[in-house]
């Protein structure tokens, strides 16, 4: 994985000094809140429902054991002993004091981490495939390019005051595990018929009030042209994105307004007008970064069926659900679920973080990944170590055998934590997980994505869940609007609303009902989204509302 050199370190330490000065000027009143706010946001510090929330960047979701221990230390020293892993592969702390923030950032800098550009109208954390480097279906490790884009986008002087936030995702696999189509820019690395490496460039994706799937603006962009081409996309957005209405300011709105062909023409025109810098990424730099993502020196091992599966049904369950085939014979990808049934999705205590760091060192060459589904991954586990790993995870409450299943719910923090929310999402996730796990439906349903957002900003990605729930306020009470048929991967699709919203009391039953219909109607083990595509919403509406009209909203 990428390791900082003197330049990377200098930047994060200088940034800490700069922010320390800015905080000092704010506390003494030399900076007003209005002036300080964008500076605070560009260092990932939000003023939230309970206190200041700090969002720390985990570049493309990759962490070393030392860094994960550093995150545990932040939780203990500056927060309340836990952190929350997000749908953008970052981590959030909810109780940071402003006067402590410079020290917290200094502690992060000590482990080569930062909170730069995790908020604000700038280019955010570049996300990627959580299985990069270890999945069988990739062209090369997508994180090479994620790291190149990360450095290029960090404190970019031209693009630090965009109309709105900007999110880039990179994948290099046949199977899109990075949700490229719901990003402002999605980059899919592949090899063309001449075996040249290049990107399909997609632009204008995003969720929220006006969800859109990204459109392809370049079928094939040679890798050497990536940075100058990105500059042209960002420049067109910077110049033409709306600045009069924050709800209409994302690049997806611009692509809609111009039409994808006209948008593409603008980008290509800027690109053809010539570089705005006299600098091309040296080949040596690409090689240097690529070398850092070279696979670990795996000891050669034979393929192995993990022992003890027959003897231990719980371990067998876990292997079936949470262990994913690895590129290298004898190894496996182990998913550490942060979704214990009845627990808080995506949260981990400082003790759990330390435990995972230890396990990473023992079993995974010291490397951990964060997924955008709010789970952790140990990417390099020898199959013969899986049983011992599972036992250790069990001791720390980290062995839920539910990866990708109904109780592996993506939930934003919701009204329990977030001042933007209309409704709580975590208790809804808890009740649903408990119901589905208890009744055996989870096991029967198999892979199923339930995604819950507490408000229209859709941080829970509800639009792209098989079952999506959107928290709304109805007559002063929390209610949940359900969508069905969403998908974040290669067959990306936005879910459709089924009908009137459900109360907090009704929503668990409603989800169970949907799954019952799915189980009754699915063929050939298809996903729920495929069933919806095939049979439409009618059968679901009938069971939910007793009519295929979707019910009327109660007064």
């Amino acid at each position, binding site marked *: 994985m990428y390791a900082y050199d003197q330049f990377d370190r200098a930047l994060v330490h200088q940034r800490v000094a700069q922010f320390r000065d800015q905080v000092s000027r704010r*506390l003494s009143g030399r900076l007003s*809140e209005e002036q300080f706010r964008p500076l605070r946001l560009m260092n990932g510090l939000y003023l939230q429902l309970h206190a200041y929330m700090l969002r720390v960047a985990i570049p493309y979701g990759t962490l070393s054991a030392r860094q994960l221990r550093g995150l545990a230390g932040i939780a203990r020293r500056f927060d309340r002993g836990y952190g929350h892993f997000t749908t953008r592969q970052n981590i959030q702390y909810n109780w940071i004091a402003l*006067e402590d923030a410079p020290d917290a950032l200094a502690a992060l800098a000590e482990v080569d981490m930062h909170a730069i550009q995790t908020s604000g109208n700038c280019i955010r954390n570049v996300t990627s495939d959580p299985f990069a480097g270890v999945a069988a279906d990739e062209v090369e490790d997508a994180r090479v390019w994620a790291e190149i884009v990360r450095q290029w986008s960090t404190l970019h002087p031209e693009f630090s005051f965009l109309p709105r936030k900007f999110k880039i995702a990179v994948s290099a696999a046949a199977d899109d595990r990075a949700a490229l189509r719901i990003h402002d820019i999605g980059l899919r690395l592949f090899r063309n018929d001449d075996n040249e490496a290049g990107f399909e460039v997609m632009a204008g994706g995003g969720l929220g009030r006006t969800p859109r799937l990204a459109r392809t603006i370049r079928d094939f962009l040679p890798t050497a042209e990536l940075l100058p081409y990105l500059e042209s996309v960002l420049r067109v957005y910077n110049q033409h994105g709306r600045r009069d209405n924050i709800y209409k300011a994302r690049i997806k709105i611009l692509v809609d307004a111009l039409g994808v062909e006209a948008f593409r023409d603008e980008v290509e025109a800027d690109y053809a007008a010539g570089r705005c810098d006299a600098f091309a990424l040296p080949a040596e730099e690409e090689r240097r970064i690529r070398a850092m993502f070279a696979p670990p020196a795996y000891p050669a091992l034979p393929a192995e069926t993990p022992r003890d599966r027959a003897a231990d049904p719980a371990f067998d369950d876990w292997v079936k659900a949470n262990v994913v085939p690895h590129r290298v014979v004898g190894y496996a990808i182990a998913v550490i679920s942060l979704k214990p049934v009845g627990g808080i999705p995506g949260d981990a205590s400082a003790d759990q973080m330390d435990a995972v760091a230890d396990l990473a060192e023992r079993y995974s060459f010291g490397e951990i990944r964060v997924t955008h589904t709010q789970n952790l991954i140990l990417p390099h586990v020898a199959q013969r170590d899986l049983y011992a790993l599972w036992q250790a995870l069990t001791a720390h409450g980290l062995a839920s055998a539910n990866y990708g299943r109904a109780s592996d719910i993506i939930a934003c923090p919701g*009204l329990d934590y977030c*001042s933007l929310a209309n409704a709580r999402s975590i208790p809804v996730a808890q009740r649903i997980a408990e119901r589905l796990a208890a009744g055996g439906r989870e096991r029967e349903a198999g892979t199923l994505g339930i995604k819950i957002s507490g408000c229209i900003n859709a941080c829970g990605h509800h639009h792209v869940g098989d079952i999506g729930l959107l928290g709304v306020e109805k007559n002063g009470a929390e209610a949940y609007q359900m969508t069905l048929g969403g998908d974040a991967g290669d067959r990306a699709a936005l879910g459709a609303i089924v009908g009137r919203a459900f109360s907090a009391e009704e929503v668990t039953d409603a989800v169970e009902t949907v799954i019952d219909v799915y189980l009754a109607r699915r063929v050939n083990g298809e996903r729920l989204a495929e069933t919806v595509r095939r049979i439409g919403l009618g059968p679901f509406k009938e069971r939910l509302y007793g009519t295929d009209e979707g019910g009327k909203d109660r007064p």
Partner: protein
Amino acid sequence: MSEAATLKAITANRLTDGAVVYLADGGAWRETLRGCRLAQSAEECAAMEEVARWAASSNLVVGPYAIDVTMDDAGAARPASLREAIRIEGPTVRPDLGRAEG
């Protein structure tokens, strides 16, 4: 006071640590609704908001705003909305982290 009138309190976040606070007498800010200033009229609320604005520009608090408050049977002030109740008591899913607010 007529039954239709709504009581209002002023809440904000403390600048230094972001803690949720409520305007009390004498321009003080406290982490509890108990004993905080309650406005019974629009004029009173406006006066409190002015005090709050002064506190914001004096770098004591950030983002003050008025909230609806009701009196419970024991005569203690409670926020009227779920959102404000969560702000005062902490996340409903982590009762160990909240304040024991009555």
